[in-house]
């Protein structure tokens, strides 16, 4: 028999009332009397009924979900029992002879056998598992690189170097800093996943940094030198005469560092900003000027 959940089209986590609803709908659609002459309809209807019968038996459903029986109700051949694991190295976590037989009365031969790591013959050797950690860092620390102290589950502190040019989602692997191994096996690794906090003004696009640059009305009309902040410190930028909002200027080599030491570029998009407070003099000036110099900026 096919997977009854598949037959009824419900998820394994579905509630019994949803299973019932799904069955009723299918039973209605597939009822053989509604499809005279269609032999397949009868088979499908029976399949749906059998699947619902199976799943509405709480005990059968539970045992099926746990993997103890298959869809026809017989115990699964591939079903594994605890003993299948207990005698192998996987069972070492639960049945370490060192835990129970360190001081066995009258058996001196065992006292030395399980003393230290070097002599642990036959004690299962297993590598420790990897441990994942998520670390949140600031935008500038990710771009320019930084060192961070990470606190492990056991309270141990570790200094981690975040390389320059790191980004959101990068995973740093620190060998041997994960879970300890068993019976002399190697420790697993520590995997550090980076989450980068957004910056109020800088946005990263690959190797370049983008930012808006507000400029004053005089700077836009007359041009001039403006100080611009980049991830690599302040830079003096010349704004050309007659610059408009939306113009983009490039500052070379002030973007995100790459492996070889070079950097991407820093781009600014100009935003012309009028003076904050209404200025009577400016208003009069512009009134006069606009009468003599009309110009359109919106389509006809």
């Amino acid at each position, binding site marked *: 028999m096919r997977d009854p959940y598949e037959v009824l089209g419900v998820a*394994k*986590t579905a509630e019994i009332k949803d299973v019932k609803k799904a069955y009723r709908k299918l039973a209605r659609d597939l009822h053989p009397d509604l499809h005279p002459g269609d032999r397949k309809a009868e088979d499908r209807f029976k399949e749906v009924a059998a699947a619902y019968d199976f799943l509405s038996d709480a005990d059968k459903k*539970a045992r099926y*979900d*746990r*993997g*103890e029986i298959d869809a026809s109700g017989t115990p699964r051949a591939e079903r*594994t*029992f*605890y003993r*299948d*694991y*207990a*005698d192998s190295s*996987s*069972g*070492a*976590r*639960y*049945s*370490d*002879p060192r*835990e*129970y*037989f360190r001081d066995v009365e009258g058996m001196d031969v*065992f006292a030395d*056998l399980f003393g230290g790591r070097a002599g642990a*013959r*036959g*004690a*299962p050797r297993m590598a420790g*598992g990897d*441990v*994942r*950690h*998520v670390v949140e860092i600031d935008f500038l620390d990710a771009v320019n690189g930084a060192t961070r102290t990470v606190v492990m*589950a056991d309270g141990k502190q570790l200094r981690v170097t975040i390389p320059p040019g790191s980004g959101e989602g990068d995973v740093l692997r620190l060998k041997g800093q994960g*879970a300890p191994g068993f019976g002399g096996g190697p420790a697993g690794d520590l995997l550090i996943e980076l989450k980068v906090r957004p910056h109020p003004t800088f946005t990263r696009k690959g190797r370049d940094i983008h930012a808006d640059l507000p400029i004053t009305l005089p700077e836009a009309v007359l041009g001039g030198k403006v100080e611009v902040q980049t991830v690599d410190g302040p830079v003096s930028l010349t704004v050309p005469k007659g610059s408009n909002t939306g113009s983009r200027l490039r500052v070379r080599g002030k973007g995100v560092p790459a492996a070889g030491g070079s950097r991407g570029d820093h781009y600014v998009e100009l935003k012309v900003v009028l003076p904050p407070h209404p200025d009577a003099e400016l208003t009069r000036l512009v009134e006069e000027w606009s009468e003599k110099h009309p110009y359109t900026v919106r389509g006809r």
Partner: protein
Amino acid sequence: MATFDEILTIHRIERVELTCWIEQRWVRPQRTAEGYLFDPVDEARISLIGELRRDFACDDDVLGLVLSLLDQLYAARQLLRTVEEAVDALPADVRASIRAHLRSPGRFDEGR
């Protein structure tokens, strides 16, 4: 590898129950930054605990005892395998002498 919530769903156990079992070290999943991860051996153990409770009507005290005895049993088996390895590496005459000792009458008598 299953997560804590997946185990709760598949094995139909309560969050409080599984937490208790982990605290009592009946189940020993790996700990990671995002929570517990269960190996196949851990899941087999959880199945076993479920069956002991349901089919064998074990209450928690008896369950603790049963698991402890089971773990000691498997540890003893591991110990025996270690000893066997050591004996295998001994000279033939010493091995024969050990075997003779195990077979001697009265050692593992039937019907005494």
